[in-house]
């Protein structure tokens, strides 16, 4: 049995043993409670989508898991062990890799140098960079992910947004991530580029990685997600499996659901003709 198989069967046999588990986690900055009573489970080979509007607490949540901030209440366990991360390095060392919106790539450095940044391979008594091996591995890993970059010497800044996103994801996977946090990977991308990135997200999941996919686009989330968590004002507003929700419901929930409906009634009172029914609008959007 290969590692991947045992990974998969483990995940299948023990669906109740999540790799990262948050229980009632809260985070306050002084008198501001950015996150309150959030519970979340991330399992291997599953994509957990975290949705929410701006300011809903998505960033705070990933910063806690990525080790940039510590939480102030509740518990977070990684591999069944309770943890408080003091630095991003500790989070990385427990197999949690984060691909941030800004991607953590240096734009003027070449693709292969970026791929191995912080984890350079060296050889010989003078610890010289093993350029040949690094270029070969970077090329292999990127090809495995289905990305073709003909010239690994070109600066990362010359790649398209989707390609850069994929380089960052491929790097995280190569360096042994068991949990991959993707912070709005499709936010700045066009339709085709988003599709490319979503394909890699699915590939990462199929490789047995637990993916946390942060987004405010319910369409992207519903395409790939196994499990959805919607945050609102720092609380979990919805936590459901894919089987129990439709895209329409998810969209409504994301868009603000009942609040938005109330708003539409209010606006209708002011200008009856100008405001469409929210439900109609969403359904029309679905049909497109």
């Amino acid at each position: 049995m290969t590692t991947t198989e045992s990974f998969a069967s483990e995940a299948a046999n023990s669906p109740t043993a999540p790799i990262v588990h948050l229980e009632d986690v809260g985070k306050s900055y002084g008198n501001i409670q950015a996150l309150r009573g959030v519970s979340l489970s991330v399992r291997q080979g599953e994509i957990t989508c975290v949705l929410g509007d701006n300011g809903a607490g998505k960033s705070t949540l990933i910063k806690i898991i990525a080790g940039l901030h510590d939480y102030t209440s509740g518990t977070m366990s990684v591999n069944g062990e309770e943890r408080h991360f003091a630095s991003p390095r500790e989070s990385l060392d427990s197999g949690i890799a984060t691909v941030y919106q800004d991607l953590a790539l240096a734009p003027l450095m070449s693709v292969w140098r970026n791929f191995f940044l912080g984890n350079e391979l060296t050889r010989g008594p003078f610890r010289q960079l093993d350029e040949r091996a690094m270029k070969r591995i970077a090329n292999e890993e990127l090809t495995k992910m289905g990305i073709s970059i003909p010239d690994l010497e070109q600066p990362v800044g010359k790649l398209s947004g989707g390609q850069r996103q994929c380089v960052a994801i491929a790097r995280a996977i190569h360096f042994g991530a068991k949990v991959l946090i993707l912070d709005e990977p499709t936010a700045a991308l066009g339709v085709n580029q988003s599709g490319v990135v979503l394909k890699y997200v699915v590939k990462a999941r199929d490789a047995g990685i637990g993916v946390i996919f942060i987004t405010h686009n319910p369409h992207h989330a519903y395409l790939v997600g196994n499990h959805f968590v919607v945050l609102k004002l720092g609380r979990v507003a919805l936590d459901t499996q894919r089987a129990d929700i439709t895209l329409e419901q998810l969209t409504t929930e994301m868009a603000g659901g009942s609040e938005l409906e109330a708003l539409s009634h209010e606006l209708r009172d002011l200008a009856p003709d100008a405001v469409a029914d929210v439900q109609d609008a969403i359904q029309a959007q679905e049909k497109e």
Partner: protein
Amino acid sequence: MASTITSPATADDRVSARSVGARLLSRPEIGSLVGAAVILVFFLIAAPPFRDINNTGTILYQAALVGVMAVPVALLMIGGEFDLSAGVAVTTSGLTAGLFAYQFSVNVWLGILIALAVSLAVGAFNGWLLMRTGLPSFLVTLGTFFILQGLNIAVTRLASGAVASNSISDMDGFGAAQKVFASEFKLGGVTIKIIIVWWIVFVAIAAWVLLKTQIGNWIFAVGGDAAAARAVGVPVKKVKIGLFMAVGFFAWFAGMQLLFVQNGVVQSGEGVGKEFVYIIAAVVGGCLLTGGYGSVAGGAIGALIFGMVQLGVVYAGWNPDWFKAFLGTMLLLATIVNLVVKNRAEAR
């Protein structure tokens, strides 16, 4: 794989591999290399003494005086910072060694070691304060520039009663130290100052470190995007403090050269304005002021251009007043070339 068309790895047909020429043109030092060639040919034609092989040693010496400091200044600039105190730090180093050895009547080598410690400490202080406060390096090193400039004069006057350090030329260890830092030898009739040899060695080592080691990769990364570097585990603070300490180390070396070439006396007011010359050499050599891009070899070529122009103007029999105007023009041209290069590299 049989079906290359359906393979997800099919190359994007909009991207073609870059030609060798295009790759060569995208090297950071290419602009300065072309500039150096043009200036060389120009002065070979315009200034007859420039063609005299005996003057080659003098030109290289002028270049090395700038070039030794251009090495760490280029590295620091690639790492995203610059150091306005680098010029006076050289004087501080020379004064420290001279004054310490004289005042405490100890072997010259002990003074040299104390100067090394002081120089490294100044660099570490710059780096530490920068990382601690998050202020721009312009402000932090402008502060240390004035502090060192003031201390140089004040401490010298306090210790020696004059504006120069006391001569240490008759003290123990002076001869050996002078051999190391400021001797000269003949090579095929050309007088070569030892600092030229040191300069070449330093450039070779620093270029190797920058391009072929992990530290070098980290220097590019902290200058290119410090937040990104930190996120993947690069010790950003250590790298930046280390770069400032490298400036300290080279300032120590240049200070020793200054001390021993002037027979053990250093003028306390020296060095002001030199920091800009080092920065010019690095920028002309293709280093981006904003960091993340550049080369050590480029800084060396920048220093060589500086040496050639400085002496070329003299050899051509022109008024040396023109030199600075020439230098400024070159700086502007170089930065424009660099800007174009950067925009091209970042173009999507």
